[in-house]
């Protein structure tokens, strides 16, 4: 019996999906911007993982005699500070490399945690329907009524600044897109013949959710996660820039930009270079997400 059921449950799905997947992955590999984005993301991961090996100096080591030194190409030829030094004489390059850790940690963990939260809410809403659905989607509407950065500012102001609090706040406030996507997938396949067939065969609804709905929703969810990660990395930098994110003792790109603002007139490199790093990473992730999205969207691929 089980083999009959298996073939009845997935008519054509097994035949079609490898072809679809192969086409998508071919389209993705041909997309140069997406590959470049992947390379940038890989560089970020490597920087974050091997920061102590890559950084020429200790990022917190101060040297007040060597304050506000310009980058190598802009001033006196000094080998010590390739990208210049800040107002406390700390090495900018080392701080940038260590700053990658904060960005990656916040982006990855908050995007993942909010993803699970969103999938839980979206799954419950789509699966149970009725009142639960209305309540969860109502909560989503309420959440969206607050500008996310303002919500994060207020929440961090209440919980107090700190890396963990930033991650908690971001995870709790960015679940809506995941929930909506998963809910929409559930609603769209609920009436499909193969789902009705497996229901008629006595498959329980949880199993249908697991076997038929999730696989279809996984790639859109990953696409959302990639865009969310880019947004969250920017938001963390914005919070730190406003002085309520990661504490000043930890080198982060947002903190560096805030510190450098005071010295805009004489030391342009302090605020601009961390911004370029941030932009490169966000750009890379966005290109990657874009590539993924167009790879799975046959309309855009053709």
């Amino acid at each position, binding site marked *: 019996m089980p083999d009959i059921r298996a073939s009845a449950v997935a008519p054509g799905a097994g035949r079609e999906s490898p072809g679809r997947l192969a086409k998508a992955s071919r389209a993705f590999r041909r997309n140069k*911007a997406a590959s470049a984005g992947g390379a940038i993301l890989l560089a970020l991961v490597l920087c974050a993982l091997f920061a102590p090996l890559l950084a020429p100096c200790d990022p917190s080591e101060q040297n007040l005699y060597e304050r506000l030194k310009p980058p190598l190409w802009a001033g006196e030829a000094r080998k010590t500070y390739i990208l210049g030094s800040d107002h406390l004489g700390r090495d900018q390059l080392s701080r940038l490399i260590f700053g990658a850790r904060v960005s990656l940690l916040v982006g990855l963990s908050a995007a993942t945690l909010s993803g699970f939260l969103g999938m839980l809410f979206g799954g419950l809403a789509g699966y149970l329907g009725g009142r639960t659905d209305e309540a969860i989607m*109502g*909560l989503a*509407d*309420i959440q*969206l*009524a*607050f*500008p*996310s*950065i*303002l*919500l994060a*500012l*207020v*929440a961090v*102001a*209440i919980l107090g600044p700190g890396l963990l609090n930033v991650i908690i706040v971001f995870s709790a406030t960015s679940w809506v897109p995941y929930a909506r996507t998963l809910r929409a997938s559930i609603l769209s396949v609920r009436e499909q013949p193969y789902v009705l067939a497996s229901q008629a065969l006595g498959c329980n609804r949880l199993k249908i959710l697991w076997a038929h709905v999730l696989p279809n929703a996984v790639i859109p969810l990953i696409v959302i996660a990639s865009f969310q990660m*880019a947004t969250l990395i*920017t938001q963390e*930098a*914005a919070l730190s*820039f*406003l*002085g*309520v994110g990661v504490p000043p003792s930890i080198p982060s790109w947002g903190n560096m*930009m805030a510190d450098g*603002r005071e010295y*805009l*007139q004489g030391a*342009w490199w302090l*605020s*601009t270079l961390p*911004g370029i790093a*941030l*932009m490169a990473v*966000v*750009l890379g992730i*966005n*290109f990657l997400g*874009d590539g993924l999205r167009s790879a799975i969207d046959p309309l855009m691929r053709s």
Partner: protein
Amino acid sequence: MSGRLLLRRLIRSVLVLLGTTIIIFATVRVIPGDPARLMLPADATAEDVERFRERMGFDEPVYRQYGTYLKGLLVGDLGRSMRYRRPVLELVLERLPATIELAGVAAILAVLVAVPAGIVSAIKRDSLYDNAFMFLSVFAQSVPIFWLGIVMILVFSVQLHWLPTSGRGTLRQLILPGIALATYISALLARLTRSCMLEVLMQDYVRTARAKGLRELSVTCRHALKNAVVPIVTVLGLQIGTLLGGSVIVETVFAWPGIGTLAVGAIYNRDYPLIQGTVLIAAVMFVVTNLVVDLVYLYLDPRIRYG
């Protein structure tokens, strides 16, 4: 038909607003410690605290307290700012025009740039222009706005001395913050315009219009664009939140005296009544704008009205 739909939409907006007030009400109460102490200036005497606690009903059950808070909101009582020692509503209304001015200019700028750029890109699909457009739009979406603000100040104010670094009052002071705030939503809007136009241009009625021998300009503007406008306006309505959130940052970078700087200042000073007030105003603006957008559709699109 239309009346019932209208009523349902109104009820939903009211429910969302009620939800936001519950969340805002709860924020101060989840902080460990005495909310009366938190909401009063640090130099308040024990008597002041006691009197305030009684007036706010902090000893009463939570649902009663919420009722009192809601009743206050209905008559425009958003509490008193601890720092300015003035009613929150007054402070917020004072700063609101500046934020509306900035967000309005950014929205207009975004529509003027993004919609034509997106249309051309859709018509010339896969051309060099289209590719450059797509690249630029991802680029514009990725630039952190506070960094863009800093770089523009560095170039146009510090280096070239063309434009002032901060403040409000003259048109020249509006240019840099306006552009900084418009960049992100322009990119979003342009990409959306492109994809909506692509979809509409594939429709049968566009083919029919072409088959009738209409000029391409007329096909694009009168037949295609008209139908692509609905999703574009919806997204613009939803972007009010992004605009308000973005203005928190842009206002801080350019010292623009709006709601954003008021909120950030309130957060620095732990001025809880003022924090609650600014967040509430932002949420109300979002809900009301989206309600208006939906009502406009209901009027414009017969499919929604009778569907």
